[in-house]
Structures are given as C-alpha cells and as structure tokens.
C-alpha cells in the first residue's frame, strides 16, 4: 500500500494521460478491495476471538464445576481412606485375636498331648503295677487253700475263697478299665460297616455258647453305617450280650435289632423282653462300673454300657436307653450320616 501511495503522490501531472488515471484507478480499486478484505478478515478474526472468549468462559465455568466435583471426589476418597483405616485396624485386631486363638489352640493341643501321655503312663502303671500285688493276694490265698486247708475250719476256708474271688474280680475290673482306656485312644479306621452281618454273627456265637437257651431273635436286614468296624462290633457285642444275659429268666426270650435311617443320622436299637430296669437310674447306666442288679443275679463288671457310650461318642453319635422294671430294655444308639461317605 505504501508503494501505491508513493506512486500517487510522486507522479506529477505534465505527461499524464487518461490511460494512466485508469490504471491508477484500477490499482486504487484493488487496494480498496484488499483493505476491505483485510477489514472483513479482522471482523471475522474478532468474531472468532469472541467465540473463543465465550468458549473459554464456558470452559472456565465448566472447570469450576469440575473443580467442585473433583473436590467432592477428593472428600469422598478421604472418607474412604478414613474408612479403610478403621477397617484396617479392625482387621488387625481380628488378626491379633486369631493369632491369640491359634496360640491358645496350640497350647491346648500340647496340654492334650501331655494328658494323653500321662493317661498312657497311668494305664501302663495300672496294667503292670496294680496287677502284680493282686496276683500275690489271689495266688497265695489259692496256695493256702490247696496246701493248708486241713489246718483251717470251714469258716477259715470260706474266708480264703472270698479273698481269692475278690482278687480275681478286681483283676477283671482292672482289665476292663484298661480295655476302656485303650478304646478311647485307639485310632479310628472308618468305612462302610454292615451292622446286620455283625449282629447275626454275634447272635450265632451266643447261641452256640448257650445251647441250653431258646431265644427268638429278630434282625433288621441291610443296616449299614459309616464307622469303625472293630469298635462298632464291640458296641453290638456289649448290647447283645446284655440282652442275652438279662433275658436268661424268660421262658420266651426275644431279642430284636432294628434301625431307623433318618436324614441326619441312623438310629439303631437292641431291644429285649428281659429283666429291664427302673428308669430313675437310666442316667447312671452309662457310667463305668455302675450296676443296677445284684452280682449273683446277673454277673458283670458294669463297664459294658460305658464302653458303648465311649465308642458311639467317638463316632459323633449319641446313646440312650429305655426300660421298665421287669418289662425289658431298649438300648439305642444313633450314628450321624457322614459327608466322608461320599468319598
């Protein structure tokens, strides 16, 4: 533009022709258009600037919102962190408690092991040390009876026989006590056990041993449970031998083995129509060495039902007994169905 204006001012008149003006005019026009264009462009620029400005304002407005949101988020996060802190200290406390429980469990285990060792030492001592003097009592009273009976009158001999019999009975008690102790610590070997088959075998043996007796037996077929076969055989031996013993004065003795399979457990029973007992003393029957009958009526050490209880409880089951004086006895035991069965 400056070049054009110089030309305008610098070209002086004398040799100017009309063609020259026309050319100038065209140039001016062109310049004018150019200026207009420029002006137009700047207007557009301005507009664009304003638009930008508005956009910026919008953005700023948005960021205020963003900021508020960010702040809210931050506050929420701080709250969360605080919650985390609370949770973490709770978890730590729980952990400490767990560790303490583990420690007391470990101590309890150690105590149990120590107690077991002590029981073992005790039953060893019972087995050996208690029997030795007993053998002296029984042995020498029997020797006295055999070698010196002519020097004793009938009463003296009777006393000696009582001493020998008492010593022998005590030997039996010690042996039963030992058996009970051994049962309680023997390892369990679980599997499917056919109780019906065991019951039939035991009844067969009892029949052979007491061929003078007639006992009607009813045995439920196909009763099986999950447990230790050796221990469950001892349970059934005790219950069936009891039933056999307490029906000895019955003309028509009946012994029944039955079972009621439930969803949680299998309840079995051994029922007899024998001497029965007074239900007042039912609780006592499962304690070792408790007897409800006179020795000369029905012999025994009174360890049988205690043994049954110990074994069934080791299977996680329960025992109970029903009866009435002179109206028979029903001994029940229930063994839980095991999830191990499916394995």
């Amino acid at each position, binding site marked *: 533009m400056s070049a054009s204006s110089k030309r305008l001012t610098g070209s002086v008149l004398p040799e100017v022709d009309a063609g020259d003006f026309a050319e100038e005019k065209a140039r001016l026009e062109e310049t004018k258009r150019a200026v207009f264009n420029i002006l137009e462009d700047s207007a557009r620029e301005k507009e664009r600037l304003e638009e930008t400005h508005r956009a910026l304002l919008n953005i700023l407005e948005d960021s205020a919102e963003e900021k508020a949101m960010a702040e809210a988020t931050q506050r929420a996060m701080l709250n969360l962190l605080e919650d985390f802190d609370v949770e973490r200290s709770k978890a730590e406390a729980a952990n400490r408690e767990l560790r303490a429980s583990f420690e007391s469990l470990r101590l309890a285990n150690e105590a149990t092991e120590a107690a077991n060792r002590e029981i073992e030492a005790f039953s060893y001592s019972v*087995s*050996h040390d208690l029997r*030795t*003097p007993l*053998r*002296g009592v029984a*042995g*020498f009273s029997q*020797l006295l009876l055999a070698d010196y009976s002519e020097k004793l009158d009938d009463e003296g001999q009777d006393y000696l026989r009582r001493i020998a019999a008492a010593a022998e009975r005590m030997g039996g008690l010690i042996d039963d006590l030992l058996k009970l102790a051994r049962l309680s610590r023997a390892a369990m070997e679980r599997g499917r056990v056919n109780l019906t088959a065991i019951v039939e075998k035991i009844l067969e043996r009892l029949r052979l041993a007491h061929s003078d007796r007639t006992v009607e037996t009813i045995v439920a077929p196909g009763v099986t449970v999950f447990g230790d076969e050796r221990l469950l055989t001892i349970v059934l031996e005790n219950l069936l031998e009891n039933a056999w013993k307490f029906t000895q004065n019955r003309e028509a003795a009946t012994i029944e083995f039955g079972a009621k399979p439930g969803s949680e457990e299998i309840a079995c029973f051994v029922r007899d129509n024998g001497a029965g007992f007074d239900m007042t003393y039912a609780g006592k029957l499962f304690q070792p060495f408790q007897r409800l009958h006179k020795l000369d009526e029905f012999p025994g050490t009174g360890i049988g039902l205690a043994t049954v209880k110990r074994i069934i409880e080791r299977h996680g089951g329960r025992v109970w007994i029903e009866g009435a004086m002179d109206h028979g006895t029903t001994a029940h035991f229930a063994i839980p169905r095991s999830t191990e069965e499916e394995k």
Partner: protein
Amino acid sequence: MKSKLILLVEDNPDDVKLTLKAFERSRLANEVEVASDGVEAIDFLFGTGKHASRDLSIMPELVLLDLKMPRMDGLEVLRRIRSDERTKMLPVVVLTSSLEDKDRVESYRLGTNSYVRKPVDFHQFVDAVLQLGLYWMVLNETA
C-alpha cells in the same frame, strides 16, 4: 528226665515264689536260677559281677524274663542276649503283667521267642507255666 536249668528274671519276691510254686506243681523237674533284676541276669549269663566265678559251660535252657525291673529292664536284657554270640540263640519268654501293645511289639522286635501275660488267678498261672515248661523244655528242639 534230666534236670534242665531255667533262668527266672523277676524282681518281685511274690512273683518269684508263685512262679517257683507253679513249676513245682507242673511237676517239670527243673532247676531254677533266680535273678532279681536285669543286671543280675546279665551277670549270670556272662559270668560277670557277683557271678564272676561261675562255670559258663552251664547255660540255661530257657530264660523267663519280666519287663519292668529296677536298674536294668527286661527289654535291655533281651537286647543284650540277642546281640551276644554266646546267647543269641537262647530261648527267651517274656513273662509279664503288661498287656501294653508297645511292650509286646518291642519284645518281639528285639527277638523274644514268646510273650506271656501272667494271669492273676494262680491256677491259670500254673497252667501257663506248665504249658511254657512243656513246650520250651520238653518239645522244643533248640538250635
């Protein structure tokens, strides 16, 4: 029948007396040497200690061995008998009050020939001794 020597290793004097009585009753004419604990038994078998001057050509035909004894117990005696050339073939019967599985298993592991529990009843005890004597002193042929 020629009298054969039995070594009875037993610390309880009542049991010694009862065992001797039982042998008497069983009418197995045997000479019984009594050792009142494990140390005495070893002294007798190997001619040491109080048996240092003993004639070792006379050895027992059978050892009846109690387990629980002071100084040296029966299992240790059994171990020593089995680890010495002079006595390792000697018939040994453990005769004890104990019915503990671990005693029985350990006795057999150490090489006892038999394990018998002493019955409380004297007549049963005589029976047991009679059968032991019959088997080990009469029927059994030693190596």
